[in-house]
């Protein structure tokens, strides 16, 4: 292996760039047609998606159905329709078993103010099935890992918002779950606190080996730590896939020519590609890498001098906004790459 020639090296790099194949058993979450209504309000409508190991962002505006989805995955709510598995457990039939393997950090304040941090985290560990001695040890260790090693014998009521978020994170981690569900963990934190919390979440997912589902309405949070993302709007899944896939998947290639681009556009249309004029540039429909051959051939045919050729890379924000505006078709076209098809 140490004697690879240049061609082999190129092939290896390509292989590295491909996502590893994930089997059904390795999926952290798998849902099919999951639906939940509150009266006439549709909280979640036939949501079908998968979440691979690592850190998955659950992105959507307020009211998109993120918290409902998290509660369904915890077995705290019963879906009216559909099925869901998390950490290998069925949310309908094994709610107690799954909660031994899942940690949860709610969005709102939820800590008992007159408990000592150490006592509370230990208590949560014991509630999740840890023996008492183990729970004591792990509570100390977990509080140390979230940065509260020195403060663990102080009452929670005297903690700052950032420290309380860390206690919430520690109680979600203390029983060594396979998956933790974090509902808006950066809410209420100042920029420095947010930065630290995101760094901590990144460590949990990438160093501690615990799968993280990070719910947020903040794109920047998701972009920073998540490996993949599921985007929700009005109870619908509008996009899902790895960040790289979502951002690289694009419908257009931007082409600029030195002279009038109309003949080139016409030649591309004759070859079956959709072309739109965007100022002086052409936006050529991207279906596969063959589009570059078609552009080259069309440029030769029309004697067009190409000065700019670039595949348009979407930001997560583009996809998010497309979804928010209800343009689900665009989002689907741009980013609907099923994780289970990778």
């Amino acid at each position: 292996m140490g004697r690879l020639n240049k061609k082999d090296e190129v092939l290896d790099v390509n292989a590295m760039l491909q996502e590893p194949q994930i089997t059904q058993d390795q999926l952290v979450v798998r849902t099919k047609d999951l639906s939940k209504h509150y009266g006439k309000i549709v909280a979640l409508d036939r949501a079908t998606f998968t979440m691979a190991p690592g850190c998955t962002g659950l992105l959507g505006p307020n009211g998109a159905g993120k918290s409902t989805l998290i509660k369904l995955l915890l077995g705290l709510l019963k879906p009216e329709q559909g099925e869901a598995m998390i950490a290998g457990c069925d949310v309908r039939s094994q709610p107690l078993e799954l909660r031994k393997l899942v940690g949860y950090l709610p969005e709102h304040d939820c800590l008992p103010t007159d408990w000592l941090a150490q006592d509370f985290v230990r208590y949560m560990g014991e509630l999740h099935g840890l023996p008492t001695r183990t729970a004591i040890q792990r509570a100390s260790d977990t509080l140390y890992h979230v940065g509260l090693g020195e403060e663990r014998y102080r009452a929670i009521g005297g903690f700052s918002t950032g420290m309380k978020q860390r206690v919430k994170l520690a109680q979600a981690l203390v029983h060594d779950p396979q998956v933790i569900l974090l509902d808006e963990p950066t809410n209420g934190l100042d920029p420095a606190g947010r930065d630290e919390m995101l760094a901590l979440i990144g460590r949990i997912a990438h160093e501690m080996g615990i799968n993280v589902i990070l719910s947020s309405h903040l794109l920047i949070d998701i972009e920073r730590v998540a490996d993949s993302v599921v985007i929700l709007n009005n109870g619908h899944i509008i996009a899902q896939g790895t960040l790289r896939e979502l951002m690289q998947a694009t419908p257009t290639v931007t082409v600029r020519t030195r002279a009038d681009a109309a003949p080139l556009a016409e030649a591309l249309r004759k070859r079956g590609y959709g072309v739109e004029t965007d100022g002086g540039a052409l936006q050529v429909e991207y279906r596969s890498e063959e589009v570059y051959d078609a552009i080259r051939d069309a440029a030769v045919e029309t004697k067009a001098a190409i000065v700019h050729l670039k595949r348009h890379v979407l930001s997560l924000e583009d996809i998010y906004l497309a979804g928010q505006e209800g343009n689900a078709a665009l989002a689907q076209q741009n980013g609907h790459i099923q994780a289970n098809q990778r």
Partner: protein
Amino acid sequence: MENNVSANARIIDRGYQHYDGKRLGLGHSEWVMLRAALLRGLGIRRNFRNKIMPWLLIAIALLPPVVILGIQIIVGLALASPYANIYPRIDFVFILFAGLVAADLICADRRERVLSLYFSAPITRLHYIAAQVTGLVLLLLLLTLVPYVILFSGQALLAPAFATFVSDHLSDLRSVLLGGVLIAFFYGSLAMAVSAFTDRRAYATGGFLGLVLVSSTAGGILASPMLHFSGHEWFSLLDLFTMPIGATRWMLGATGGLPLDGSAYLWGSFAVIVISLALVGWRYLKVSD
């Protein structure tokens, strides 16, 4: 020596450790919640302010046996069966303790929205509330049972013949045990039922004390013979203050001053316990996390 120390020195890895051991079941979680309720009710591992009332009330509940045994030791005056007369004089301690501790056990969890964390653990809502009710009842037994068992044991030890005293007063012991458990369940479940409907401790305690006092006043007035209507005595079953004490006194053979047969108070107490527990369970199946 220094070299040896250096040779033995190691960097302790504080990296995250996974847990591969056994994960215990619902029984363990239930015990953990019960233990927490007992410690919380007694103010243990909490600041001094939280310890004052429970321990003061426990001390007051322990006073009658201590005084009676003290008199017996110092003066030599032995009361044959003092239990029935103690309960009516000390029932306010049971009621106050139940009102304060019930509110302390469950109101703060809802007010601070900790239930969302507890219910994300492998327990159900009914497991949670069952642990809290059991904790309160066990704590109430410290007041309704332990002092009388101490009194009985002390009297037996001070009696000329231990075995004779025990065999002569065995029915008293049985009634004291049953009565203590009945009173603890009665006030414990009733106080929990009231506390389950508010997340403010003051309202819960005040509401419970108010309910007991108002029911006692209303029951007393409506059951009064001065009203001259038939069946008026049945209104004494509205009196939540007297009901379990009346049943216990009846079990101890002291029926004086009760408008109805003692068994009516016993059945009435059972009904209140069942209704209260049903209310608590229903409330916690519905309560928002």
